[in-house]
């Protein structure tokens, strides 16, 4: 046997090959990214034309995931009932299972957007949650790109599910996979430098752990409508 390639990495491997093909098209002398911090500006090569993505013919670059719906009996009716009626209507149309926070008043402010590929809930805090903005989204779409090595997060949430815990300009962000789809929770404080709730990851992780399943369309057929 001369070469073995795990099949699970098939398309990742195929797509990963593409940048090698591009080396001379976009950047005649591509810099070593790991030494770019030593590259003085005056010596860098200004580029005029970028590459276009080169892909493998026939490969699906955008793919839908299998949604694993929880049983209807798992719906947390108490949490769902606290969401505004417009939000409940949108939840019933969601193509992926919707998760909302059990505790606090955020769920009472939820505005939910349900689209063919995703669902997103946005909540502004009031009362004791004043100054908090919470975003919860989930998508059943996965993008396959060239040059992306498999990377596994070291952290976990919600009963051991691998998770990325990131920050974006003071906004805490947690993403993980559950029910076969991808979830993202973002927590933003109106005054991040002064607000203890955004000083550490503790609050966003507590919210993530507290999320309850509140429903969805239970649609299993793929496809955009």
């Amino acid at each position: 046997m001369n070469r073995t390639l795990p099949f699970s990495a098939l398309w990742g491997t195929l797509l990963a090959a593409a940048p090698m093909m591009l080396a001379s098209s976009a950047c005649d002398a591509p810099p070593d990214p790991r030494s770019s911090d030593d590259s003085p500006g005056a010596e860098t090569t200004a580029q005029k034309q970028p590459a276009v993505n080169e892909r493998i013919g026939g490969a699906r670059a955008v793919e839908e995931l299998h949604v694993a719906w929880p049983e209807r009996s798992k719906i947390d009716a108490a949490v769902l009932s606290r969401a505004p009626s417009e939000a409940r209507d949108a939840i019933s149309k969601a193509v992926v299972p919707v998760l909302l926070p059990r505790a606090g008043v955020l769920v009472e402010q939820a505005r939910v957007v349900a689209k063919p590929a995703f669902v997103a809930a946005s909540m502004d805090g009031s009362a004791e949650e004043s100054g908090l903005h919470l975003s919860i989204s989930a998508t059943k779409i996965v993008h396959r790109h060239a040059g992306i090595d498999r990377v596994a997060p070291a952290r976990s949430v919600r009963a051991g599910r691998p998770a990325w815990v990131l920050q974006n300009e003071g906004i805490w962000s947690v993403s993980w996979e559950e029910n076969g789809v991808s979830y993202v929770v973002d927590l933003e404080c109106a005054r991040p430098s002064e607000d203890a709730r955004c000083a550490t990851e503790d609050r966003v992780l507590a919210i993530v752990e507290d999320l309850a399943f509140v429903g969805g369309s239970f649609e299993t057929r793929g496809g955009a409508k």
Partner: protein
Amino acid sequence: MSIRRRLGTTLVASASAAVSLLSAGQALADDFSYNPPGTLVSGSGSGRFDETIYAPGMRFPIEEAPAFLNSQVWGHGGGSGPGGSQCDVENFSYPWWDNYCETRSWDMPLCPSGQGHQGQDIRAKSCEKNVHWVVAAEAGSVTNIGSYSVYITAADGTRYDYLHMGSVQVSVGQDVEKGQHIGKVSNEFGGTPTTVHMHFNLRQNVAGVGNVYVPPYLSLVTSYQALIGPPVEPAVGSLDEVSCDAIRGWTQSPSSPEAPIDVRLYFDGGPDTAIGHPFLADLSREDLCTAIGSCEHAFQVPPPLSLYDGVDHVVHATASDGSSNAPEVANSPMTMNCAFELPSGVRRRVADLDSANAWHFSPFWDEIAVSDGILSTIDEGEDLDRTPRLVATSSAPETLYLVDGGWRRAVSDEIVGVAWQFHPMGAEIISDEELAALPAGKPLRARPIVLRSASGDLWLVDDAPGPGSTGPGGLGGSGDDGDGATPDGDGDDVSGSCDCVVGRAPASSAWTTVFAAFVAAGVARRRLARGRRGTRP
């Protein structure tokens, strides 16, 4: 109001900075240049060299040029910069600098160091706040507005983040069009000082990684070139056929007529509302050689099985060359109306969703829901392996076989390989002797047909394991070994009791018809060669 007067009233800026700003305004679009992706300002960290355009076709998110990509922290006026004012001319000059992955203390999975800046800082043409419009880079829905952030999520799930804006014009739940005003470049940061700039993120659920911030730099470069460059002749193409056998047509970019470009297919909605499915249109079609002067621009995919429900589905196709303008091709949209006819064979259990993902079975393209009554009409066969094992030999590396229950099953041609998402680069290379030791089984069917039961179980409709109808052939490396490489057409339809059949259906065996259609189209692929180029040192 002049720029100088605005500066005097809205910003604390030195006189020299104001002069610099006037100079910045003289920057010409023709002078545009940019550093390679991953090249950060010296001392600001390790960038990611990545030539992927993660959001092809997006609109540059500042309404008017010039605009400048560089670091607000390591630039003039930034906390780690060389000093001076944020209005320094150098901040408003080409070349652009990538600052994705710039040094930060938080995790960033795609950065070389594992930590870094999530997006790209963008300055408009001057350092004035609340003057320059930010526009939607892509059509989508406003999914969140924080105190200094606006998220717009596109139909394909990509999230576009716009930070530090003032004068926000949109509200949560609103659908926006590409190029629509959403706010103005400012320095909003929840009371924390920052320079006047717009922080721009792209966020996607990326296979093998998860839902992360992806590099936006080249998406911004290409969209800026579209903004400042001369008008480019839009891509063209045609949707030639939408039937129950195939969706086919071609695309071409007049500015780069030899290079294959994408077709994007949309079902039951247009680009603003439906998920776009991109495919590289790189098949060779003889009629195109003369018609458009270049042969390899065709596409042909089997219609999504999940839409075989006997009702009309509208199919839109756009020609996408990566520019902001991806026009609908000629004859688009067209309508498909297909009923599902259950082919004969056995049903083979797919172990679970992980296994389905390992086989790349798509709920949209490959699966269809059936009643338990229908399911019970098919005999149960052997369980499907949890993962496919694809093999080839070094003497014929592009002739693929699936090893299935000890049998080698031919992947008849590249079209079948595409339907199953099999490719030579994913094959395990074994010796000719090892391959010959595997008895020849029936060839792989033309496309996977996966049935989903009411309880969510998945079943592949397949042939029972056994010898191929034409027997084993030679394995001398010609790739034409005659070991059942043509579907044997035994996938006869179930008649009578099939309560899922509505509307019209293929007149003959569905899968033989599909295969025949592919062959009749005279499609010759060069994809194998294209894919294998990646193996060059």
